């Protein structure tokens, strides 16, 4: 529905199982139409057949204009902030990344014009990835979620893990003695809850409030003041301002679940801001994600304060 008619028709004509596990649909002006999924990168011709790049359908300016009108609901003005950030979220929590010519004012991007590329990133909304590990991420003696840092290199499922953990903590896991907590998500890039017009498109739990498209630092303070959460969840911390906000959250007695880019603890400690937080023993659990058994494999769960390991697959 949010694809331009020409592309929709091509995909409808195809006999390939394009939609199964589809990750990305890339529309680049006058360059081959490409789909990325379990079959790898596919280039489609107007009949929907997988062909070499030089014989593939090439999206036209009309296609891109039409796509932009559809994803913005004919209302570019209503998505200026998102366009400046280079993406739009559409119903279903899918995100459309945009490329074009940046318009600068005083060195800051104020708009994106002459759109030349769109990347439809299909939200998978995988559920259950965090469920096996929730017990390790709750301090049962105080009946509260542990201050947790989810760490992985890019593309290893940090956001998916965060979302599912938020859902588990929000709904609780009654069979394992974990009650539901009041969860608040600061979703700066609309990636965790995939909000469309303020409504989460992905399941984040029944006791979860989402502050969508709000800068992390400001958002954490706002939630602290207004929503009385028991847990605050946010993505990709690392700036000096983030550190101040994290300290504030912890001091307020609210648990924090956050993510950060990194491949191991040593690398994290090298990063000035995160290293400082680890030195201050702010985090009680670190979840390391990797790809050893496929994207999103939980490689290790440990307490960074004393290196106590709570989970590590056998053989490691």
């Amino acid at each position: 529905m949010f694809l331009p008619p020409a592309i929709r028709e091509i995909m409808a004509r195809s006999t390939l199982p394009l939609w199964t596990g589809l990750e990305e649909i890339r529309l680049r002006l006058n360059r081959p139409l490409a789909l990325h999924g379990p079959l790898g990168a596919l280039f489609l011709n107007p009949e929907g057949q997988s062909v070499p790049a030089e014989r593939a359908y090439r999206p036209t300016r009309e296609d891109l204009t039409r796509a932009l009108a559809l994803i913005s609901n004919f209302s570019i003005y209503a998505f200026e902030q998102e366009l400046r950030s280079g993406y739009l979220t559409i119903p279903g929590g899918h995100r459309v990344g945009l490329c074009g010519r940046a318009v600068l004012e005083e060195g800051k991007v104020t708009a994106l014009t002459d759109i030349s590329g769109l990347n439809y990133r299909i939200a998978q909304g995988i559920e259950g990835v965090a469920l096996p590990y929730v017990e390790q991420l709750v301090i049962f003696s105080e009946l509260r979620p542990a201050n947790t840092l989810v760490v992985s290199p890019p593309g290893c499922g940090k956001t998916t893990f965060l979302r599912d953990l938020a859902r588990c903590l929000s709904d609780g896991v009654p069979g394992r003695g974990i009650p539901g907590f009041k969860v608040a998500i600061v979703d700066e890039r609309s990636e965790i809850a995939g909000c469309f017009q303020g409504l989460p498109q992905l399941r984040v739990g029944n006791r979860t409030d989402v502050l969508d498209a709000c800068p992390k630092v400001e958002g954490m303070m706002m939630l602290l003041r207004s929503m009385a959460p028991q847990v605050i969840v946010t993505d990709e911390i690392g700036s000096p301002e983030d550190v101040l906000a994290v300290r504030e959250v912890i001091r307020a007695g609210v648990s924090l679940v956050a993510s950060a880019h990194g491949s191991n603890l040593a690398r994290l400690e090298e990063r000035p801001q995160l290293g400082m937080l680890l030195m201050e023993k702010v985090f009680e659990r670190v979840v390391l994600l990797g790809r050893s058994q496929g994207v999103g494999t939980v490689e290790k769960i440990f307490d960074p304060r004393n290196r106590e390991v709570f989970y590590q697959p056998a053989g490691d």
Partner: protein
Amino acid sequence: MAILIFKLGGALCVMIAAIGLGESKASTLGRRVHHLQLFQQSLGLLVTEISYAHSILPLAFQRVSRQVASPVKELYSRAAERLIAGHDSCARLAWEGAVRQVGTRTCYTEGDLEVIKALGVSLGESRKEGQLTQIELTAKRLEFLLHEAQGDRTRNERMWRYLGLLGGAALVILLL
């Protein structure tokens, strides 16, 4: 006697028809002013939706349509329907389609409809400032049309009424 009654009846019918025609012409002038005022009012509402509520266009149209009277109400609701149905490739086409559908049932002149149609140019396709400038431009052109329509009304409303009455009377004299 019967012929006289028949003639008087006929004369009465002619008079009523002529007066009705004059009245209809006169009221069209008044309704044009009213319809232009309604559209002017709707532009203010549209500015609020775009500027403050940041509503997407189909929603903005629906909200405006709920707050204005007919026929402008139908204009916005039809445009919203067309956008939601997704048959038109851009907001301009949806707006122009709605103007075509609803315009024939209004008292707008061709010139009025052109100005209303021009609102659709770049509708939803630019940043907020661009949208507001476009609406402001339409409002200015509308102000001019409204002034003209009010002048027309002042000058011609009474004339059409008298013309209906006197035309009817003249016709009756001729026929009798």
